[in-house]
């Protein structure tokens, strides 16, 4: 059991945050490529929970459902605050 005597660093949550970030960006780009207003469409999805807001282009509609809406919102708030603090 010697292998468990060392202190180990588990990085679970940040990976999920990273995944959420990647999904937001991919969905954003897919909406933009299809000529939609990505901000308005993603806001509509977050408010209603209806994937109709998200295009099926580049598999964005399936992708957006891999994370919960509250996770997306949390990531958006985190990014906003980070950006606001840096200004």
């Amino acid at each position, binding site marked *: 059991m010697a292998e468990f005597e060392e202190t180990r660093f588990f990085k679970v949550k940040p990976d999920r945050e990273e995944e959420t970030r990647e999904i937001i960006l991919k969905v954003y780009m897919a909406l933009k490529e299809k000529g939609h207003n990505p901000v308005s469409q993603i806001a*509509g999805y977050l*408010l*209603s929970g209806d994937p*109709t807001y998200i*295009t*099926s282009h580049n598999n964005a509609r399936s992708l957006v*459902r891999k994370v919960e809406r509250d996770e997306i919102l949390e990531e958006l708030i985190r990014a906003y605050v980070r950006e606001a603090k840096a200004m």
Partner: protein
Amino acid sequence: MSKLVIRGRRRLHGEVTIGGSKNSSVAIIPAALLGDGTSILENIPRISDVAVFAEILKDLGAVVTMDGTTMTVAPNGFVSHIAPYELVRKLRASYYLMGVLLAKFGEAEVGLPGGCDIGPRPVDQHLKGFRALGADVNVEGGVVKLKAKKLVGAPVYLDFPSVGATINIMLAASRAEGITVIENAAKEPHVVDLANFLNAMGARVQGAGTDVVRIRGVKNLTGASHTVIPDDIEADTYMMAAVATGGDVTVKNVITKHLEPVTAKLREAGATIEENGDYVRVIGPERPKALNVKTLPYPGFPTDAQQPLVAVLSRSEGVSVVQESIYENRLGYVSELVKMGAKIRVEGRTAIVEGVPRLVGAPVKANDLRAGASLMIAGLSAEGVTEVYGLEIIARGYEMVDEKLRSIGADVEVRPD
């Protein structure tokens, strides 16, 4: 006239691809008239309600072409505010022309709509919305006449979340001056799909899919490209056909979120359902378990899926109770299921279904679209031959139904009546 002849008791298996949403299409096609340029609409289902709407648009002066599942609408010659009564009476959704013509010309004359006979479906909430926006409303000789010097945005509270009224008010308000707020709005997916199309045309609609929809009117809309969402009710129907026959069917091109009310109930009935991206795989049990179901506005159990579900439950183990809370007269088809050996009692708007081990094929008649779907499912699970008369009614909402059923192993054919 034609009929669908079904030799039942075959387990359905394989893959079926769902077409575009009927309910979205019949709102989006007339909305294309609001643009100053050409709109390209993709994933339009090949159903007769769409064909009728195309004829109405042509009658009004627009140029409409259909290539496979892509419809192009060029409203350049669109000059008339009077909808052709002979065509309008053929489908319920023609009432969306009220909102479109009013927004485009400041006046509209549209006959009260036709559609399935499933009880009174008044348009009072639509008219209340038009009045709130400043239109004079008169109903004379079965024709709704609307006129407004100028439409001005206003708050509208709907007495109940009417899909038709929500859509019609969105259409009228899209080019009104100022902001319209619809409270207690319908949340159905096709409301969101229409909002997406209007926004692609330059409109500013927010909150669709929630119970408050805000529309900031704009002076002009352009043409736009749009892909219609998959038809949730068509998907529900094939899922139920799989359950009714103890089959194993993968239903492709769906938005699984929209199927959740039905998925949940079919799982309760004993089906195994795998959801993955844009498809669902449905494996039916030997015999479904009995259920208690009440139809409700979205995201509740859809009234359009009530009739197909009762066909599934006819062969269930135990007694099911199905309450229809949306329409007054949507259990008329039960007498046809009884002809096939189903044991169903109707009390008011409730069907009490005592499951039987087997249904037996019989000649039956579809009196409305979803009743047709119900009889079709009953026929697929029944012993012997079922003849469903009134295939034209089923073709109003299901594209290539015989071909799609054959592709998953059903023994069906279309014959002249």
